[in-house]
């Protein structure tokens, strides 16, 4: 008996306990919802069958219905555009700011810290702030553009079908820049100064140093912010809820918001689950590419 107690305190039994604890957490809180979601996507679920496990399996019917829906092509295209443009501007502007703060001017560290203020705000708050900025009648953005003489009338950023998606993208880019900047700043700080000095003595101009030293050595960090950016952008929900609710008439709707609409507004839970499953597959693919690309990385 004391032996068992010892084993549990400091031995194989304790190790097993730790492993089971972690596995149990994963099973209950990660694996179960994932598998349950997968099962839902093959079942006919409505409000009446929601509470029971005994639901008719319908094979690929939910998938066919979701992919065949009239709005599906538009929403897929919106999602692709939302992810691509958000990432493009988040990463380039974030990288640009990281390079700026890497010049170490007076107060650089302090100012860089302030940039994080936007990132730590809740998405719904950011959405509310941007809905005021973007408001068609009295928004600051329209006022600014008109004062500068860039537009004559008003742009109805949130209710114009041609503008709605771009409005959310603008807000999302703003939200994502600090995260990109901080992660890339850390990467830039890890590049030793003497590499740049050696390159300068070797005859490299500032641009050549950026191209032959900075970019290759930032490969891993850039890969990380792009992969994480894809994942975060596909998780972006609050801004759509706060700004456009996917409207007008799905002009700014994206997969993650559509999935929520189907599941929790229209109670077509099987259809909502299909969209989640497709997004999970895509994110896993992105993560796999990221892990592969960092494995070949050359550590400094």
């Amino acid at each position, binding site marked *: 008996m004391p032996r068992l107690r010892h084993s549990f305190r400091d031995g194989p039994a304790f190790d097993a306990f730790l492993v089971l604890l972690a596995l149990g957490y994963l099973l209950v809180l990660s694996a179960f919802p994932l598998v349950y979601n997968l099962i839902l996507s093959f079942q006919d679920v409505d409000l009446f069958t929601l509470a029971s496990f005994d639901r008719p399996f319908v094979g690929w019917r939910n998938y066919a219905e979701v992919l065949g829906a009239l709005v599906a092509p538009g929403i897929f295209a919106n999602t692709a555009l939302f992810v691509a443009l958000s990432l493009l501007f988040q990463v380039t502007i974030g990288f640009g700011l990281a390079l700026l703060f890497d010049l170490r001017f007076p107060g650089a560290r302090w100012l860089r810290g302030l940039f994080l203020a936007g990132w730590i705000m809740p998405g719904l708050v950011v959405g509310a702030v941007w809905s005021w900025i973007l408001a068609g009648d009295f928004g600051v953005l329209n006022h600014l553009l008109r004062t500068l003489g860039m537009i004559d009338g008003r742009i109805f950023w949130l209710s114009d079908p041609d503008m709605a998606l771009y409005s959310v993208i603008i807000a999302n880019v703003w939200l994502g820049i600090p995260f990109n900047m901080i992660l890339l700043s850390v990467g830039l700080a890890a590049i*030793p100064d003497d590499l740049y000095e*050696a390159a300068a*003595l070797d005859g490299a101009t500032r641009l050549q140093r950026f191209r032959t030293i900075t970019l290759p050595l930032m490969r891993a960090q850039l890969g990380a912010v792009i992969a994480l950016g894809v994942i975060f952008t596909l998780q972006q929900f609050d801004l759509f809820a706060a700004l456009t609710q996917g409207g007008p008439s799905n002009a700014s709707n994206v997969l993650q918001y559509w999935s929520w609409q189907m599941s929790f507004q229209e109670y077509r839970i099987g259809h909502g689950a299909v969209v989640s499953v497709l997004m999970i597959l895509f994110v896993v693919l992105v993560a796999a590419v990221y892990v592969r690309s960092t494995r070949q990385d050359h550590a400094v």
Partner: protein
Amino acid sequence: MTEPQIELHGIQKHYGAFHALRDVSLTVPAGRFVALVGPSGCGKSTLLRVLAGLETIAAGRIRIAGRDVTHLPPRLRDLAMVFQSYALYPHLTVEQNLTYALRLRGVPRAECRRRAEEIAAITGLQSLLGRYPRELSGGQRQRVAMGRAIIREPRAFLFDEPLSNLDAALRVQMRSEIRKLHDRLGATSVYVTHDQIEAMTMADTVVVMRAGRIEQEGPPLALYDRPANRFVAGFIGSPAMNFLPGEIAPDGRHVRLALPGDPVLALGSRRLDAGRQVTVGLRPEHLVPAEDGSGQMTLSVALVEQTGSASMLVTATDPALTVAVARRLDLRPGDPIRLSVDPSCIHLFDSVTEQALSPEVMC
């Protein structure tokens, strides 16, 4: 061979309130190997970086091969530098590291390949061209850094403490390799080190710096034999010179040492003001144990270190004297020892200004 390759005139450098270089002027003739040496913070690395163009200066001119480069960026100065950390490009192979500068200049691929192989043969890197820096040992990285410098055939080589990250045995080996390479290439080199042995063994000219100023420059043995001041005397030589207070005797031709028994040493042909307070400098190897009971002072031994071929003694006096003898001595702590000094081996410094008095002494 003797026209100046590098000329520095009146260089001033500040880091905020810290005056890093104070009116430094230095001329390096073509083909010369010059070592900048001094304690940390003396400005030697700063001077090298100023020369490379990595630091701006408040005043002064820099000329390389007759061309004023004071306001040119590093890439237009045509200098190669070997860094203390080697600063190899971690994402490039050895061959790509070697040819980086050539590829920037648009040298064709085949020519780059040929030059890389040539340099690899000189530096012993033939089998390592495809490796990445992280796959190399410290000595191999050092060689890549050297190869990357010589492949460009620059106007001069700058070395910033290149051996300080190597272990002692490899350091001694690389010391002679660097010097051989310098001679073989007929290069002009400026070499920064805090290690005076490195400076003494490698350089044609040693420049001793302290607190942003050049204290003395000259051939290694000239600095050893005729230090211009107490600082240089103490910095050059290992074990370091002994210093003790003394007073010139009434006849002006002897000095009385502040040691037990008030020993008096003859100064040879030198004559100084009677009663003058001086600092006497005696190198450990110039304190010679007297066999036959002669000798000028009798001191008590505090410590004996035997290395097999040589002995080192420390005397039980204040200040303690170090005595180096190139043979074995059968002495124990507490034993008395009689020592004598050749008059021409006595260094004298003004006790206030610390400048050498009658530095013509030769030993």
